[in-house]
């Protein structure tokens, strides 16, 4: 387990470093980032001033290491438009997005696990067909359109929930549904496949043969094993959601990291953009690391170093 943990930790560190390099060089895709910030038709001295301000005139390697060392110390530079340290803004907004992500994954799990279990217990039944429909529809529904449709019905037509903002708990209901529904199909399919596989295994037959109640077999014996991969998938999906919440946060004007990302993209605020991409990527790396370690801890067969 120790060897596996160390190896996984090393890979995670290497991935995080590579991501930081890509994130840093992202702003050079257009050639000169100073021109990208200044916009077309900017005066030469303005571009020169921007180049000086951001330090684009120094060697790229030097810029990268300065940025990386700063980032490691929690210093992402100053936001050009917000006129305050980027790190402060990010840590102020991150909890909102985390809360939204947690609510969304909770919604997805509450919907997906019972449906997946029921579908596996009665394969090809009506419940199974219904679950399959939910999955197929969920995968094809554009999240932003689903969110707008929720706004129209729950917010405007029936006036049940507030449309925008992030001050009260009611504000989070629709965004959590819109964001969570998108990851439901994957979790449901995995739950169904896992339970289906476990139910046909020998130890379940033994449990049934010794006369355990069907419910006890299902919950105490089958679900416990089938749920392991679902846990790590949920961790991964949570990471995906943090990155994907930009669309939902923009629609509902939730003051989280996604909305900040959209604002800084609009304003060409490069330091903030870089910091958000790096923060979300590192969170994702940590989540997958956690998921892998958890899996290996629960299932020794996966500890192949």
């Amino acid at each position, binding site marked *: 387990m120790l060897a596996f943990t160390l190896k996984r930790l090393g*890979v995670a560190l*290497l*991935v*995080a470093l*590579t*991501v930081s390099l*890509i*994130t840093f060089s*992202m*702003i050079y*895709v*257009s050639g000169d*980032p100073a021109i*990208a910030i200044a916009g077309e038709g900017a005066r030469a001295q303005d571009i020169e001033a921007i180049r000086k301000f951001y330090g684009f005139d120094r060697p790229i390697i030097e810029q990268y290491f300065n940025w990386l060392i700063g980032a490691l110390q929690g210093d992402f530079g100053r936001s050009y438009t917000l006129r305050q340290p980027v790190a402060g803004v990010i840590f102020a907004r991150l909890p909102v997005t985390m809360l939204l992500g947690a609510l969304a994954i909770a919604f997805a799990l509450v919907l997906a696990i019972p449906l997946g279990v029921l579908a596996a217990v009665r394969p090809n039944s009506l419940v199974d067909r219904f679950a399959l429909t939910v999955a*197929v*529809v969920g*995968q*094809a*529904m*554009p*999240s*932003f*359109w689903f969110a*707008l*449709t929720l*706004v*129209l019905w729950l917010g*405007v037509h029936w006036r049940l929930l507030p449309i925008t903002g992030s001050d009260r708990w009611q504000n989070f209901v629709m965004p959590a549904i819109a964001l969570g529904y998108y990851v439901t199909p994957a979790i449901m399919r995995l739950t169904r496949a896992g339970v289906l596989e476990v139910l046909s295994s020998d130890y379940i037959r033994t449990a049934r043969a010794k006369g355990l109640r069907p419910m006890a077999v299902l919950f105490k014996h089958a679900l416990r094993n089938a749920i392991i991969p679902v846990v790590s998938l949920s961790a991964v999906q949570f*990471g*995906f959601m*943090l*990155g*994907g919440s*930009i*669309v939902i946060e*923009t629609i509902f004007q939730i003051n989280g990291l996604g909305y900040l*990302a*959209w604002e800084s*993209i*609009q304003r*060409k605020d*490069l330091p903030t*953009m870089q910091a*958000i*991409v790096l923060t*979300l*990527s590192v969170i*994702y*790396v940590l989540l*997958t690391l956690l998921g892998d370690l958890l899996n290996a801890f629960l299932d020794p067969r996966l500890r192949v170093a």
Partner: protein
Amino acid sequence: MAELSVKRAGTMSAEEILAPSPGALLRRRIFRHWGLMIGGMILAAIVLMAVLAPFVTTFDPYDQQLARKLIPPVWHGGAKATWVHPLGTDHLGRDYLTRLLYGAQISLLIGFSAMLISGVIGTVMGVLAGYFGGRVDMVVNFIITTRLSMPVVLVALAVVSIIGSSLTVVIWVLGLLIWDRFAVVMRSATQQVRVREFITAAQALGCSTPRILLAEVAPNVVNHLIVVATLEMAHAILLEAALSFLGLGVQPPTPSWGLMISEAKGLMFFDPWLISIPGVALFLLVLAINMLGDGLRDITAPENRG
């Protein structure tokens, strides 16, 4: 038992001797798969309408008639609704059906092109990793992990905003970002093929590696490739719509479904059909492609082979 089967073999009917060919079996599986048939038909209808758009509608998707703005679709009734504009007109008086049809061209074009680019990248990486294993596999795996840890929508938005958005930029950015599933699936498919006897035989015969990859490996992984290709095309279409919705995809006045929803956002409380129509179109297209992909996976899965 043996006697029985011998006797049976002796009295085979004409039908049994003329057993269906593999092709006939495949066709039968295709036509019996409802999801595949429905998905395929919806997709064919959308492609046909997109290609024939200039013949289906006489309007120009860019032509603004401000005097005729915001006509509701025919099923809404009312004094303004007219069969001249079956789906109504938008806030600039452009025929909504026409915008929808030309928007289908954009969605299909972007989805297909981005899928091609990502397919080439992902397949090359996956096949090489699966065939050679060892160091190559480690490197490819690392690249896949790195790619997966970066948030697609965010990176795409940021890069498009820095380069400046256009149709080509959107296609390339999406194509260069979403190859991960191709690589993952092709890697494991190739790993399964690599250990088969005919590969060993080809190696023993002294075939060159490119020949083995093209003539022996490729035909055996191509069914997985087609399935991933359909699902990734749907993925690319959804991403384009999301980018255009956020204002960083296809630029106005190009008709794109995501952009149509974005432009109608401010009016959706008064004219909700403005977002429902492109939304339903987008949903149907992605649903059809996904159903086709799922169906193809069902009929080509080795365990279903008759």
